[in-house]
């Protein structure tokens, strides 16, 4: 499975025709959810600044960080991104922007389109957990959800990606061969059979294009 992914990823990396073969993203995107672990800061540093300030949907991100570390992600990225970068408060309404899960809380989405936090036990040894975000987001946005699994050294995000697929959403996974840590995208590919496996620049470009053509 990983070998197949590598073939597709390598083949697609610089070839415009392979990029054109990307399956179409949902015509109406409600939200984009992203999970990243080891290597996350570099990967997101490449991806997030590509999103235009006019991106009309929320981009919600779980990054695994030690619980005791104060969250620096939002301030780190707000300087580098045209799109506003925030950390949600409990029950805050969803809105366009880049939202980072606060450290030591699970981040979930509610059907009334608000954020919800929990301190339930860690899932996959992680709090926040990517699976928890993805599964709740799949319940809310079903076919209008785009899930992205990036670099990481554990298996978090795989069941979540599977739940997004089951709800009719679109899953893209970073080609493990191009990821700083291959395990997490490889698990996601194995469990969720994503619609698209691609390099980081390709994922960044696809999201940017989707943001530019989306109507608010």
């Amino acid at each position: 499975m990983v070998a197949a992914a590598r073939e597709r990823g390598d083949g697609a990396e610089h070839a415009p025709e392979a990029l054109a073969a990307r399956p179409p993203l949902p015509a109406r995107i409600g939200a984009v959810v992203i999970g990243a672990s080891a290597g996350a800061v570099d990967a997101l540093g490449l991806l997030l600044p590509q999103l235009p300030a006019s991106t009309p949907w929320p981009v919600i991100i779980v990054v695994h960080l030690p619980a005791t570390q104060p969250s620096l992600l939002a301030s780190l990225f707000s300087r580098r991104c045209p799109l506003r970068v925030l950390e949600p408060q409990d029950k805050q309404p969803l809105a366009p922007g880049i939202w980072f899960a606060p450290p030591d809380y699970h981040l979930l989405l509610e059907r009334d389109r608000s954020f919800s936090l929990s301190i339930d036990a860690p899932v996959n040894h992680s709090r926040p957990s990517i699976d928890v975000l993805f599964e709740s987001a799949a319940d809310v946005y079903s076919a209008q959800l785009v899930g992205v699994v990036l670099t990481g050294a554990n298996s978090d995000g795989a069941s979540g990606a599977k739940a997004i697929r089951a709800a009719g959403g679109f899953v893209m996974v970073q080609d493990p061969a191009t990821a700083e840590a291959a395990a997490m995208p490889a698990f996601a590919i194995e469990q969720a059979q994503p619609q698209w496996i691609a390099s980081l620049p390709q994922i960044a470009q696809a999201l940017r294009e989707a943001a530019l053509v989306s109507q608010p």
Partner: protein
Amino acid sequence: MSGRALETAAPELEVRLLLEAIFLRFHYDFRSYSMASLKRRIQAALPKLGCATISALQDKVLHHPQALNELLQFLTVQVSDMFRDPLFFRAFREQVVPEMQTYPSLKLWVAGCSSGEEVYSLAIALAENGLLERTILYATDINPDALAKAEAGVYPLERMAAFTENYRAGGGTRSLADYYTAAYGNAAFSRSLRSQVVFSDHSLATDHVFAEVQVISCRNVLIYFDRPLQDRAVGLFSDALCRRGFLGLGARETLQFSPHALAFREAAKERWYQRW
């Protein structure tokens, strides 16, 4: 609507029916809990209670009421640390305690105390400021098992290293080990810390105010409620607090979206609000 959309909705329908059944039969009201995390906890309970579906769980709870107690352990959240978010306790010592020292007697309410870690944390902070003897602490929760744990005050010894670190970062002036006795892999907290504590069953969803208090700590409880239930709980706090009384919330909880926001002002850093 496609069949797929209906399938996705089915578990939530089952959750709502289960919660309604639990309310009608047992008067535990989870109907206004945050659905996303509650659904996860119910799904985690299914294999533990030997049920394939949430509907089967409903059947089991209605016909075998003893199963309710087991389910309650999943519906309520029992993850708690001592001195979680140490800066909250530092702010308590530096900004709440000085005002409390002006009162001849004090009442403090830990709402949703779960297994009691927060109660002992606050009792220690009060003791180190000479306030414990003149304070009554109300520790309330809806889960009788959690209340029993809270009253016992016994926690795994392996958690003490992390709690000690939090205690120091939160402004602790002694050694945390002064407050517990280690035996058989557990740490049993000193009886003197709970001599002033009243442990009691109380639901923020269905019960009312029971006393006027000077301080309420309710951290990472409101995140489990939907907006209307949050509003109800904050309304209770607003009614229970004396003027200038303090309300401490979790690090990611805010009164910003609450209809009771005007009754409070941000009094100190780290989510301490003051009744106004």
